[in-house]
Protein backbone atom coordinates (compact mmCIF):
# COMPACT_ATOMS: atom_id res chain seq x y z
CA UNK A 1 0.00 0.00 0.00
CA UNK A 2 1.14 3.50 -0.76
CA UNK A 3 2.83 5.13 2.25
CA UNK A 4 1.30 8.56 1.56
CA UNK A 5 -2.22 7.18 1.32
CA UNK A 6 -1.68 5.22 4.49
CA UNK A 7 -0.58 8.36 6.28
CA UNK A 8 -3.58 10.32 4.97
CA UNK A 9 -5.96 7.62 6.09
CA UNK A 10 -4.29 7.55 9.51
CA UNK A 11 -5.00 11.26 9.91
CA UNK A 12 -8.66 10.54 9.27
CA UNK A 13 -8.69 7.90 11.97
CA UNK A 14 -8.45 4.90 9.69
CA UNK A 15 -5.62 2.58 10.62
CA UNK A 16 -4.47 0.42 7.77
CA UNK A 17 -1.83 -2.22 8.08
CA UNK A 18 -0.82 -5.50 6.55
CA UNK A 19 -0.56 -8.88 8.15
CA UNK A 20 3.15 -8.83 7.35
CA UNK A 21 3.72 -5.56 9.19
CA UNK A 22 1.72 -6.72 12.17
CA UNK A 23 3.56 -10.01 12.29
CA UNK A 24 6.99 -8.40 12.06
CA UNK A 25 6.00 -5.70 14.56
CA UNK A 26 5.11 -8.39 17.06
CA UNK A 27 8.29 -10.36 16.43
CA UNK A 28 10.67 -7.45 16.59
CA UNK A 29 9.30 -5.96 19.78
CA UNK A 30 9.22 -9.05 21.92
CA UNK A 31 12.71 -10.48 21.50
CA UNK A 32 13.24 -12.39 24.68
CA UNK A 33 16.92 -13.14 25.15
CA UNK A 34 18.23 -16.31 26.64
CA UNK A 35 19.82 -15.45 29.96
CA UNK A 36 23.27 -16.85 29.55
CA UNK A 37 26.73 -15.39 29.35
CA UNK A 38 30.12 -16.91 28.75
CA UNK A 39 32.68 -14.31 29.79
CA UNK A 40 33.23 -10.62 30.45
CA UNK A 41 30.90 -9.55 27.61
CA UNK A 42 28.07 -10.94 29.73
CA UNK A 43 28.77 -8.21 32.29
CA UNK A 44 28.14 -5.60 29.62
CA UNK A 45 25.01 -7.49 28.59
CA UNK A 46 23.79 -7.37 32.20
CA UNK A 47 24.59 -3.67 32.34
CA UNK A 48 22.59 -3.15 29.15
CA UNK A 49 19.58 -4.82 30.74
CA UNK A 50 19.72 -2.75 33.93
CA UNK A 51 18.28 0.70 34.61
CA UNK A 52 20.94 2.84 32.99
CA UNK A 53 20.75 1.41 29.46
CA UNK A 54 17.38 -0.29 29.97
CA UNK A 55 16.98 -2.96 27.33
CA UNK A 56 13.31 -3.06 28.35
CA UNK A 57 12.71 -0.13 26.01
CA UNK A 58 13.10 -2.60 23.14
CA UNK A 59 10.81 -5.24 24.58
CA UNK A 60 13.74 -7.41 25.54
CA UNK A 61 13.81 -7.11 29.29
CA UNK A 62 12.70 -10.67 29.97
CA UNK A 63 15.86 -12.72 30.07
CA UNK A 64 14.52 -16.25 30.00
CA UNK A 65 16.24 -18.92 32.03
CA UNK A 66 15.09 -21.63 29.62
CA UNK A 67 15.92 -21.89 25.92
CA UNK A 68 12.36 -23.11 25.31
CA UNK A 69 11.03 -19.64 26.14
CA UNK A 70 13.72 -17.58 24.44
CA UNK A 71 13.81 -16.01 20.97
CA UNK A 72 17.25 -14.51 20.96
CA UNK A 73 20.60 -15.94 21.90
CA UNK A 74 23.22 -13.35 22.81
CA UNK A 75 26.53 -15.21 22.61
CA UNK A 76 28.28 -12.93 25.06
CA UNK A 77 31.88 -13.94 25.50
CA UNK A 78 34.60 -16.41 24.66
CA UNK A 79 33.28 -19.70 23.32
CA UNK A 80 35.80 -22.33 24.33
CA UNK A 81 35.86 -25.55 22.37
CA UNK A 82 34.74 -27.36 25.47
CA UNK A 83 31.71 -25.07 25.72
CA UNK A 84 30.82 -24.94 22.01
CA UNK A 85 28.70 -28.14 21.92
CA UNK A 86 26.61 -26.86 24.80
CA UNK A 87 26.08 -23.50 23.08
CA UNK A 88 24.92 -25.26 19.91
CA UNK A 89 22.68 -27.52 21.97
CA UNK A 90 21.08 -24.52 23.69
CA UNK A 91 20.49 -22.97 20.28
CA UNK A 92 18.89 -26.18 19.04
CA UNK A 93 16.57 -26.20 22.03
CA UNK A 94 15.21 -22.75 21.24
CA UNK A 95 11.95 -22.72 19.26
CA UNK A 96 11.70 -20.88 15.95
CA UNK A 97 11.76 -18.03 15.16
CA UNK A 98 15.14 -17.58 16.77
CA UNK A 99 17.96 -15.12 16.32
CA UNK A 100 21.60 -14.92 17.34
CA UNK A 101 23.69 -11.90 18.25
CA UNK A 102 27.42 -12.69 18.48
CA UNK A 103 28.68 -10.18 21.00
CA UNK A 104 32.33 -9.21 21.24
CA UNK A 105 35.59 -10.08 19.54
CA UNK A 106 35.72 -13.63 20.96
CA UNK A 107 32.25 -14.66 19.92
CA UNK A 108 32.70 -13.37 16.36
CA UNK A 109 36.27 -14.51 15.69
CA UNK A 110 38.05 -15.90 18.73
CA UNK A 111 39.35 -12.42 19.54
CA UNK A 112 42.60 -12.30 21.46
CA UNK A 113 42.50 -16.09 21.77
CA UNK A 114 42.36 -16.62 18.02
CA UNK A 115 45.70 -18.43 17.90
CA UNK A 116 44.95 -20.58 20.91
CA UNK A 117 44.20 -24.26 20.83
CA UNK A 118 41.16 -24.12 23.06
CA UNK A 119 38.94 -21.33 21.78
CA UNK A 120 36.40 -21.57 18.99
CA UNK A 121 37.18 -19.03 16.29
CA UNK A 122 33.70 -17.59 16.12
CA UNK A 123 30.34 -19.15 16.96
CA UNK A 124 29.25 -18.59 13.34
CA UNK A 125 31.17 -21.77 12.48
CA UNK A 126 28.31 -23.82 13.93
CA UNK A 127 25.16 -21.69 14.04
CA UNK A 128 23.86 -18.87 11.82
CA UNK A 129 24.51 -15.45 13.34
CA UNK A 130 22.24 -12.50 12.56
CA UNK A 131 24.25 -9.62 14.02
CA UNK A 132 27.94 -9.48 14.89
CA UNK A 133 29.16 -6.84 17.37
CA UNK A 134 32.88 -6.09 17.47
CA UNK A 135 34.53 -4.77 20.63
CA UNK A 136 36.34 -6.14 23.61
CA UNK A 137 33.95 -5.96 25.30
CA UNK A 138 31.41 -3.92 23.33
CA UNK A 139 29.78 -1.16 25.33
CA UNK A 140 26.10 -1.54 26.21
CA UNK A 141 25.34 1.04 23.51
CA UNK A 142 26.83 -1.36 20.97
CA UNK A 143 24.51 -4.11 22.20
CA UNK A 144 21.56 -1.70 21.93
CA UNK A 145 22.67 -0.91 18.39
CA UNK A 146 22.80 -4.61 17.62
CA UNK A 147 19.29 -4.95 19.00
CA UNK A 148 18.02 -2.14 16.82
CA UNK A 149 19.83 -3.64 13.82
CA UNK A 150 18.18 -6.98 14.48
CA UNK A 151 14.79 -5.32 14.87
CA UNK A 152 15.26 -3.51 11.57
CA UNK A 153 16.29 -6.76 9.89
CA UNK A 154 13.15 -8.45 11.21
CA UNK A 155 10.97 -5.50 10.19
CA UNK A 156 12.25 -5.66 6.62
CA UNK A 157 11.56 -9.34 6.15
CA UNK A 158 8.81 -10.40 3.79
CA UNK A 159 6.71 -13.38 4.70
CA UNK A 160 6.53 -14.75 1.18
CA UNK A 161 9.00 -15.28 -1.57
CA UNK A 162 12.46 -16.71 -1.69
CA UNK A 163 13.91 -14.42 0.98
CA UNK A 164 11.30 -15.14 3.62
CA UNK A 165 12.64 -15.81 7.12
CA UNK A 166 14.04 -19.24 7.86
CA UNK A 167 11.26 -20.33 10.18
CA UNK A 168 8.76 -20.00 7.35
CA UNK A 169 10.75 -22.27 5.05
CA UNK A 170 9.57 -25.78 5.78
CA UNK A 171 12.73 -27.52 4.59
CA UNK A 172 15.18 -25.14 6.31
CA UNK A 173 16.81 -26.68 9.36
CA UNK A 174 16.07 -25.27 12.77
CA UNK A 175 18.60 -27.49 14.49
CA UNK A 176 22.25 -27.73 13.67
CA UNK A 177 24.62 -30.65 14.25
CA UNK A 178 26.34 -30.54 17.61
CA UNK A 179 30.12 -30.90 17.29
CA UNK A 180 31.74 -33.83 19.02
CA UNK A 181 34.85 -33.82 21.17
CA UNK A 182 37.67 -35.26 19.10
CA UNK A 183 41.18 -36.38 19.93
CA UNK A 184 42.74 -33.11 18.72
CA UNK A 185 39.90 -30.71 17.97
CA UNK A 186 36.16 -30.50 17.69
CA UNK A 187 34.75 -32.81 15.03
CA UNK A 188 33.84 -31.32 12.60
CA UNK A 189 35.84 -28.10 13.09
CA UNK A 190 33.02 -26.17 11.44
CA UNK A 191 29.63 -26.79 9.92
CA UNK A 192 30.18 -26.43 6.14
CA UNK A 193 26.48 -25.71 5.61
CA UNK A 194 26.73 -22.63 7.82
CA UNK A 195 30.31 -21.46 7.42
CA UNK A 196 33.08 -21.87 4.86
CA UNK A 197 36.59 -20.51 5.08
CA UNK A 198 36.65 -17.16 3.32
CA UNK A 199 38.15 -17.06 -0.13
CA UNK A 200 41.73 -15.99 -0.41
CA UNK A 201 42.32 -12.70 -2.19
CA UNK A 202 45.12 -12.51 -4.73
CA UNK A 203 46.92 -15.14 -6.76
CA UNK A 204 50.14 -15.49 -4.76
Amino acid at each position, binding site marked *: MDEGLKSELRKQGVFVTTLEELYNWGRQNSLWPLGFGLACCAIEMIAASMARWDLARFGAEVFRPSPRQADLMIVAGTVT*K*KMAPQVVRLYNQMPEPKYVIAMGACAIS*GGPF*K*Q*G*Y*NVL*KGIDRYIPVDVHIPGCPPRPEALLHAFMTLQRQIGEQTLRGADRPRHLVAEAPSEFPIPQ*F*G*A*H*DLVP*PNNPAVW*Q*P*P*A*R*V*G*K*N
Partner: protein
Amino acid sequence: METLEQIKARVEAAVPGAKLEIVLNAAPCAQHSLRVDNANALAAARFLRDDPQLRFDYASNVTGVDWPDAVVQETKLVKQVVNGVERDVERTFETKTPGCLEVVYHLYSMELRHGPVILRLRTNDRADRNHVPSLTPVWRGAEFQEREAYDLFGIVFDGHPDLRRILMWDEFMDFPMRKDYVGPDDYEWEPTPHDEVLVKAKRHQPQAREVEE
Protein backbone atom coordinates in the same frame (compact mmCIF):
# COMPACT_ATOMS: atom_id res chain seq x y z
CA MET B 1 63.17 -18.21 57.54
CA GLU B 2 66.13 -20.54 57.25
CA THR B 3 68.24 -20.33 54.13
CA LEU B 4 67.79 -22.83 51.37
CA GLU B 5 71.07 -24.52 52.34
CA GLN B 6 69.87 -24.97 55.90
CA ILE B 7 66.54 -26.35 54.77
CA LYS B 8 68.31 -28.73 52.41
CA ALA B 9 70.59 -29.98 55.19
CA ARG B 10 67.70 -30.46 57.60
CA VAL B 11 65.57 -32.31 55.05
CA GLU B 12 68.48 -34.60 54.24
CA ALA B 13 68.99 -35.23 57.95
CA ALA B 14 65.31 -35.91 58.56
CA VAL B 15 64.62 -38.05 55.50
CA PRO B 16 67.29 -40.69 55.17
CA GLY B 17 68.39 -41.24 51.60
CA ALA B 18 66.82 -38.06 50.27
CA LYS B 19 68.82 -36.48 47.49
CA LEU B 20 68.23 -32.74 47.29
CA GLU B 21 69.79 -30.30 44.94
CA ILE B 22 69.68 -26.53 44.94
CA VAL B 23 68.76 -25.21 41.51
CA LEU B 24 70.17 -21.73 41.10
CA ASN B 25 68.21 -19.01 39.42
CA ALA B 26 70.51 -16.65 37.56
CA ALA B 27 67.85 -13.96 37.18
CA PRO B 28 68.01 -10.84 39.40
CA CYS B 29 65.23 -12.21 41.60
CA ALA B 30 67.65 -14.99 42.61
CA GLN B 31 64.75 -17.22 43.54
CA HIS B 32 66.59 -20.50 43.93
CA SER B 33 64.74 -23.74 44.29
CA LEU B 34 65.12 -27.19 45.75
CA ARG B 35 64.98 -30.28 43.58
CA VAL B 36 63.94 -33.44 45.37
CA ASP B 37 64.30 -36.99 44.10
CA ASN B 38 61.02 -38.71 43.36
CA ALA B 39 61.42 -41.59 45.80
CA ASN B 40 61.67 -39.34 48.84
CA ALA B 41 59.58 -36.40 47.66
CA LEU B 42 56.54 -37.27 49.71
CA ALA B 43 58.53 -37.67 52.94
CA ALA B 44 60.45 -34.46 52.26
CA ALA B 45 57.19 -32.61 51.61
CA ARG B 46 55.72 -33.94 54.85
CA PHE B 47 58.80 -32.73 56.70
CA LEU B 48 58.54 -29.26 55.13
CA ARG B 49 54.91 -29.05 56.18
CA ASP B 50 55.25 -30.44 59.71
CA ASP B 51 58.59 -29.16 60.93
CA PRO B 52 57.93 -26.53 63.63
CA GLN B 53 60.52 -24.12 62.22
CA LEU B 54 59.29 -24.41 58.62
CA ARG B 55 55.55 -25.18 58.69
CA PHE B 56 54.97 -24.79 54.94
CA ASP B 57 51.25 -25.36 55.18
CA TYR B 58 50.21 -23.74 51.90
CA ALA B 59 51.10 -24.82 48.37
CA SER B 60 50.18 -21.62 46.60
CA ASN B 61 51.04 -22.68 43.09
CA VAL B 62 51.76 -25.88 41.22
CA THR B 63 52.91 -25.67 37.66
CA GLY B 64 54.75 -27.67 35.05
CA VAL B 65 57.80 -27.02 32.93
CA ASP B 66 58.63 -28.82 29.73
CA TRP B 67 62.31 -29.38 28.97
CA PRO B 68 62.57 -30.78 25.44
CA ASP B 69 65.59 -32.79 24.31
CA ALA B 70 68.29 -30.22 23.76
CA VAL B 71 71.52 -30.23 21.78
CA VAL B 72 73.96 -27.60 23.05
CA GLN B 73 76.76 -26.70 20.67
CA GLU B 74 79.98 -25.45 22.17
CA THR B 75 83.06 -24.25 20.32
CA LYS B 76 86.36 -24.89 22.07
CA LEU B 77 89.99 -24.48 21.22
CA VAL B 78 91.70 -27.84 21.12
CA LYS B 79 95.38 -28.56 20.77
CA GLN B 80 95.95 -30.68 17.70
CA VAL B 81 98.99 -31.66 15.75
CA VAL B 82 98.66 -30.31 12.22
CA ASN B 83 101.53 -31.05 9.79
CA GLY B 84 103.86 -31.88 12.66
CA VAL B 85 103.14 -28.56 14.46
CA GLU B 86 100.92 -28.40 17.51
CA ARG B 87 98.24 -25.76 17.05
CA ASP B 88 95.02 -24.57 18.63
CA VAL B 89 92.15 -25.71 16.44
CA GLU B 90 88.53 -24.71 16.90
CA ARG B 91 86.24 -27.67 17.25
CA THR B 92 82.53 -27.84 17.95
CA PHE B 93 81.27 -30.21 20.60
CA GLU B 94 77.67 -31.27 20.87
CA THR B 95 76.19 -32.10 24.21
CA LYS B 96 72.88 -33.87 24.15
CA THR B 97 70.62 -33.30 27.12
CA PRO B 98 67.65 -35.64 27.33
CA GLY B 99 64.37 -33.86 27.94
CA CYS B 100 62.14 -34.19 30.95
CA LEU B 101 59.12 -32.68 32.57
CA GLU B 102 59.27 -30.77 35.78
CA VAL B 103 56.71 -29.87 38.42
CA VAL B 104 57.24 -26.74 40.47
CA TYR B 105 55.57 -26.18 43.84
CA HIS B 106 55.60 -22.77 45.51
CA LEU B 107 55.27 -23.24 49.25
CA TYR B 108 54.38 -20.65 51.85
CA SER B 109 53.78 -20.80 55.55
CA MET B 110 50.57 -19.18 56.65
CA GLU B 111 51.33 -19.87 60.28
CA LEU B 112 54.86 -18.47 60.41
CA ARG B 113 54.31 -15.99 57.56
CA HIS B 114 57.28 -16.88 55.47
CA GLY B 115 58.02 -18.23 52.06
CA PRO B 116 58.20 -19.05 49.31
CA VAL B 117 60.29 -22.16 49.09
CA ILE B 118 60.23 -23.60 45.62
CA LEU B 119 60.19 -27.34 45.26
CA ARG B 120 60.90 -29.09 41.98
CA LEU B 121 60.21 -32.67 40.96
CA ARG B 122 61.50 -34.15 37.75
CA THR B 123 60.27 -36.98 35.55
CA ASN B 124 62.69 -39.37 33.94
CA ASP B 125 61.72 -38.48 30.41
CA ARG B 126 58.93 -36.93 28.37
CA ALA B 127 57.48 -40.12 26.92
CA ASP B 128 56.34 -43.02 29.09
CA ARG B 129 58.44 -42.53 32.22
CA ASN B 130 56.64 -39.30 32.98
CA HIS B 131 55.69 -40.08 36.56
CA VAL B 132 56.23 -38.04 39.71
CA PRO B 133 54.72 -38.64 43.14
CA SER B 134 51.65 -36.58 43.88
CA LEU B 135 51.92 -34.16 46.78
CA THR B 136 48.14 -33.87 47.10
CA PRO B 137 48.24 -36.10 50.22
CA VAL B 138 50.38 -33.41 51.83
CA TRP B 139 48.71 -30.28 50.44
CA ARG B 140 45.06 -30.85 49.59
CA GLY B 141 44.99 -27.64 47.56
CA ALA B 142 47.40 -29.08 45.03
CA GLU B 143 44.75 -31.47 43.71
CA PHE B 144 43.29 -29.35 40.91
CA GLN B 145 46.64 -27.81 40.04
CA GLU B 146 48.23 -31.22 39.64
CA ARG B 147 45.30 -32.19 37.46
CA GLU B 148 46.03 -29.11 35.38
CA ALA B 149 49.69 -30.10 35.04
CA TYR B 150 48.54 -33.57 34.03
CA ASP B 151 46.11 -32.13 31.51
CA LEU B 152 48.42 -29.62 29.85
CA PHE B 153 51.86 -31.23 30.26
CA GLY B 154 51.08 -34.92 30.54
CA ILE B 155 52.81 -35.39 33.88
CA VAL B 156 51.38 -38.40 35.69
CA PHE B 157 51.06 -37.93 39.45
CA ASP B 158 51.29 -41.24 41.29
CA GLY B 159 49.03 -41.28 44.31
CA HIS B 160 46.74 -38.51 43.12
CA PRO B 161 43.16 -39.24 44.28
CA ASP B 162 41.41 -38.20 41.07
CA LEU B 163 43.75 -37.75 38.14
CA ARG B 164 41.59 -36.65 35.21
CA ARG B 165 41.80 -33.87 32.67
CA ILE B 166 40.47 -30.65 34.14
CA LEU B 167 40.49 -28.03 31.37
CA MET B 168 40.37 -29.98 28.14
CA TRP B 169 37.76 -32.62 27.41
CA ASP B 170 38.37 -36.24 28.35
CA GLU B 171 38.69 -37.40 24.73
CA PHE B 172 41.53 -34.95 24.08
CA MET B 173 44.84 -36.72 23.40
CA ASP B 174 47.46 -33.97 23.24
CA PHE B 175 49.28 -31.95 25.88
CA PRO B 176 48.97 -28.36 24.72
CA MET B 177 51.59 -26.71 26.93
CA ARG B 178 54.42 -28.94 25.73
CA LYS B 179 56.94 -27.20 23.53
CA ASP B 180 56.42 -29.59 20.64
CA TYR B 181 52.64 -29.32 20.62
CA VAL B 182 51.15 -28.42 17.28
CA GLY B 183 47.69 -26.97 17.62
CA PRO B 184 44.77 -27.51 15.28
CA ASP B 185 45.26 -25.53 12.12
CA ASP B 186 42.10 -23.48 12.26
CA TYR B 187 42.80 -19.77 12.35
CA GLU B 188 44.92 -18.86 9.35
CA TRP B 189 42.16 -17.75 7.06
CA GLU B 190 43.12 -14.14 6.83
CA PRO B 191 41.97 -12.19 3.82
CA THR B 192 45.57 -11.51 2.73
CA PRO B 193 47.87 -14.19 4.13
CA HIS B 194 51.57 -14.20 3.49
CA ASP B 195 54.69 -16.19 4.34
CA GLU B 196 54.07 -19.14 6.67
CA VAL B 197 50.42 -18.28 7.05
CA LEU B 198 50.01 -18.37 3.28
CA VAL B 199 51.44 -21.89 3.13
CA LYS B 200 48.96 -22.97 5.77
CA ALA B 201 46.11 -21.12 4.11
CA LYS B 202 46.88 -22.84 0.79
CA ARG B 203 46.68 -26.19 2.49
CA HIS B 204 43.22 -25.35 3.78
CA GLN B 205 41.68 -23.80 0.75
CA PRO B 206 40.92 -25.56 -2.47
CA GLN B 207 42.27 -23.75 -5.52
CA ALA B 208 38.75 -23.22 -6.83
CA ARG B 209 38.06 -20.83 -4.02
CA GLU B 210 40.93 -18.59 -5.00
CA VAL B 211 39.75 -15.15 -6.02
CA GLU B 212 41.77 -12.87 -8.21
CA GLU B 213 42.26 -9.29 -7.19
